[in-house]
């Protein structure tokens, strides 16, 4: 499978990365090189093989559904623009 320029634009949109129109052909080329490399997997027969979900055989640990942390909004917003401990973003609803 190889990606065309239309697909590159779609993937960039899904990934939320602004790609300049002039960079699309180069990016398509680069992605195709990587995708061609992973095409080697087509040689492998995986019939009846389960996907690996954990590299270590153990049951997923569970914790009690209780609050164990929190109550420090100032620390949460310390790394960005905020007002009254809320994150500030551009207007979303007109």
């Amino acid at each position, binding site marked *: 499978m190889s990606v065309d320029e239309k697909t*590159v634009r779609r993937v960039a949109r899904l990934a*939320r990365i602004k790609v300049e129109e002039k960079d699309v052909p180069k990016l398509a080329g680069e*992605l195709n090189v990587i995708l061609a*490399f*992973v095409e080697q997997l087509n040689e492998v027969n995986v019939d009846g093989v389960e996907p690996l979900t954990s590299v*270590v055989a153990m049951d997923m640990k569970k914790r009690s559904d209780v609050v164990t942390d929190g109550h420090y909004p100032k620390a949460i917003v310390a790394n960005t623009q905020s007002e009254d401990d809320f994150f500030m973003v*551009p207007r979303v609803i007109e």
Partner: protein
Amino acid sequence: MSLTSLTIAEARAALKAKKFSALELTSAYLDAIDKAKALNAYIVTTPEQALTMAKASDTKIGAGTAGALEGIPLGIKDLFATKGVHTQACSHILDGFKPGYESTVTQNLWDAGAVMLGKLNMDEFAMGSSNETSYYGPVTNPWRRKNSNASLVPGGSSGGSATAVAAHICAAATATDTGGSIRQPAAFTGTVGIKPTYGRCSRWGTIAFASSLDQAGPIARDVRDAAIMLKAMASVDAKDTTSVDLPIPDYESFVGKPIKGLRVGIPKEYRPDGLSSEINALWDKGAQWLKEQGAEIVEISLPHTKYALPAYYIVAPAEASSNLARYDGVRYGLRVPGDDLIDTYERTRAAGFGREVQRRVMVGTYVLSAGYYDAYYVKAQKVRTLIKRDFDAAWAKCDVVLTPATPSPAFAPGEITDPVEMYLNDIFTVTVNMAGLPGIAVPAGLSESGLPLGLQLIGKPFDEGTLFQTAYAIEQAAGKFKAPQWW
């Protein structure tokens, strides 16, 4: 003799015997760091914090309550969250980010008495094999080719960690390994690096790249120091459900244990066409050294080896695209204003991520997108099962596997521009991550051009002890290697 030339084990003994203070040791390292700016290993130094921590260590040493790493000065890869200190994965998108919390691995080190010297350079978000993708510029390898002044890369992504250890501007460093990011730079700089079994170290507070592959581990000057470091870094952690609740052995006790009767597997698939005669010879020599010390060499087969790297370049970008979705300019780091919220996201991520990170996020987004998930991601996870089965079968025949660490010694900046060619640097290391196993890189000699070359040992899950035991046997035969100081 300068204090910075001491290994952790030597410094530990001297501090205990009060031959010098922790403050003197830390001051010696801070001076050495100042003189080594040309290497660009540190992106931030924390001298005040270091001196405060060193003084506290001296108090504890005086009171007889010293921890396992009391007063030992360490460098920390920029991927680990350090409270109130620059933590940006060497990415532009995390500009100004200072976490309000400490990673579990670094907290364990401070609890053991270690001293933080600063944060180390790395490939952006740990994506790279040469430390050339860092927003803070490339790191220079302390090693140079014979009769040459040309710069070489230190490998990556833990290039700053490996360089700092090799240049003696920290006693040891933390590092992380998703596809080879501890072992490849260790091999390129003549240092020892171990990626432990997945789950041995907590991932909490380590900026995520590919969560099913990422593991923290140390880079150190020799095998004993790596054992001391890993013991202090490892822990089970309620904040990381994938961390494993198994006892942490005294790894140092494996250093020097005889290897008589140990079965060492040599996988025939690790000798691809075109592997240099130099690497082949090094590998043979390593096997010979172990044989001379009483180990039994057995040929094994890991038939799916060649598929590990292509499967990795599906799994790792897929997980990265998901993990890096959080960098949207809203809650921390860089924000580039746009016409609306979506435009803000897109402009922020375009400006904040470097080319390699953008490429991987887009590959990951593509392979996870509707209609392709089964063909790529699920297929790659199935191949991963086959890779793991190869190892499970091999353990019936051997106790440890010996391979080269890298296909070549360190290369020059700009020498590799093709992404896939760069990815091939991890050809010998990536299988270990895919199967979740522990792997250690240990220096085994110098190339014809005078550069360090490493061998890799791969172990059974949670059998890091055998890796230290076997790596030490190689170190005893090969000796240790130090770059001549030119900086």
